């Protein structure tokens, strides 16, 4: 059972990690899996539901219907319920346990998540040049299907000002943009709401456009959510971020180093091969036979090729010495 990436997105802002740890559940191992499930489900806020699912389970083999009495000596606790379940050996009870575990996991997985809030995503900060256009993107994640009443609202708050004005609104399939204020005729809704995209395009930027743009998306009936803001900074000429030049210098020098090392080893390899073939052409037939025998097992991996060539050189030299 893989934990879905979608759950992580929906789980933002919540305290517990939810059922993320369900990875590794093996249906064949009921005792251990139940321990794992119980420990992890305890983290989720709906752990009380878990109690109700497991308490009626059979503690021993003599209660096939699924309703059993809790033994007196162990307290009514989470670990105790797990202890019961680990001890049961009846096969039908095991399958029922598995069904219960799966059902509780499914319910715990989906039920709390369905009441999750809608989460809106925008960039953190955007830099742009004076006079250029900038596209501010806004997407959202919602557990529901995209309804026809999906709506996007963009608000703008200038730097140093306390007022927030609406500049763009999309609702009921229609986009409305600012036609009275600072952004008159400069804002265009370019998103595709059916694809969860509510981006706007602001044209012909000026220094007075520095500020915070807030996007609020609603997907009825999923309307509870926190709007997300993007900060716009308008520059005359784009500054180079701190550390780029330094990093570039370091990267260039290290790249040169790597290049030199590679070229060095390449030259060594090539020279070794050339010397090897020179020896073959110089010393007539007998050397050729010897070299042909050696060239049979010749294609080994690269780092050992040089060693092979060097050792072959040495062998030839020792042969020369012998003769």
């Amino acid at each position: 059972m893989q934990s879905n990436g979608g759950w992580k997105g929906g789980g933002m802002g919540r305290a517990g990690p939810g059922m993320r740890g369900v990875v590794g559940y093996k249906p064949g191992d009921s005792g251990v899996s139940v321990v794992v499930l119980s420990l992890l489900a305890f983290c989720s806020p709906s752990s009380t539901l878990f109690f109700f699912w497991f308490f009626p389970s059979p503690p021993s083999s003599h209660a096939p219907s699924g309703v059993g009495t809790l033994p007196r000596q162990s307290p009514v606790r989470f670990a105790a319920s797990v202890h019961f379940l680990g001890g049961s050996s009846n096969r039908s009870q095991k399958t029922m346990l598995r069904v219960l575990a799966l059902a509780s996991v499914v319910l715990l997985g989906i039920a709390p998540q369905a009441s999750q809030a809608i989460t809106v995503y925008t960039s953190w900060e955007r830099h742009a040049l004076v006079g250029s256009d900038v596209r501010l993107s806004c997407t959202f994640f919602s557990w529901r299907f995209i309804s026809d009443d999906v709506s996007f609202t963009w608000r703008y708050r200038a730097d140093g000002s306390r007022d927030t004005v609406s500049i763009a609104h999309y609702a009921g399939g229609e986009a409305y943009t600012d036609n009275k204020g600072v952004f008159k005729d400069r804002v265009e809704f370019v998103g595709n709401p059916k694809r969860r995209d509510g981006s706007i395009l602001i044209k012909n930027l000026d220094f007075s456009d520095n500020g915070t743009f807030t996007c609020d998306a609603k997907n009825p009936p999923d309307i509870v959510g926190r709007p997300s803001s993007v900060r716009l900074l308008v520059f005359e000429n784009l500054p180079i971020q701190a550390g780029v030049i330094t990093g570039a210098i370091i990267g260039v020098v290290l790249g040169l180093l790597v290049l030199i090392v590679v070229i060095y080893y390449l030259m060594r390899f090539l020279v070794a091969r050339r010397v090897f073939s020179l020896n073959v052409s110089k010393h007539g037939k007998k050397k050729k036979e010897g070299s042909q025998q050696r060239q049979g097992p010749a294609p080994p991996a690269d780092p050992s090729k040089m060693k092979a060539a060097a050792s072959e050189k040495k062998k030839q030299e020792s042969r020369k010495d012998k003769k």
Partner: protein
Amino acid sequence: MLVLVALSVLHIAAIILLLVATIDNAWWVTSTTSTDVWGRWMLTGNKWNLTDLPAGYPEDYLHAVQATAVLACIFSIIGLFVFITQLFTLANGNRFTISGVFQILACLFIMIAASIYTDRFHVNEHSIGNYGHSFILAWIAFALTFISSIVYFVLRKK
């Protein structure tokens, strides 16, 4: 054996000094500020705040000092690993040239960094403050890496 240990200790000491010189923020110290090539700590009303470097700094020299100081650290650290590799793979009787090359490059880079800093920064402020311990360590690291590289160039493997 003793020579090996001494060499490694020297090399590691050089690395440590280089790292402290690059990372610790005390190239130039006055009574209320403590600065290096990355940022500036200013004492404002009993509290130290990290602020950006003043805009009056010569930008390109600053980048050069930053880059060369970091490169010196990198080369010295790589040199240590190369030295350890060469201990095992070098044939007897050969010199540790490649480790020596790395150390001499580290020496060169930290020399460049410290020299540019000495020459171009705080030229008119000598009455107000003085050089901090990172700056001094940078110069000591220069000396150590130089000695280390000379030893690598001269020593032969037994």
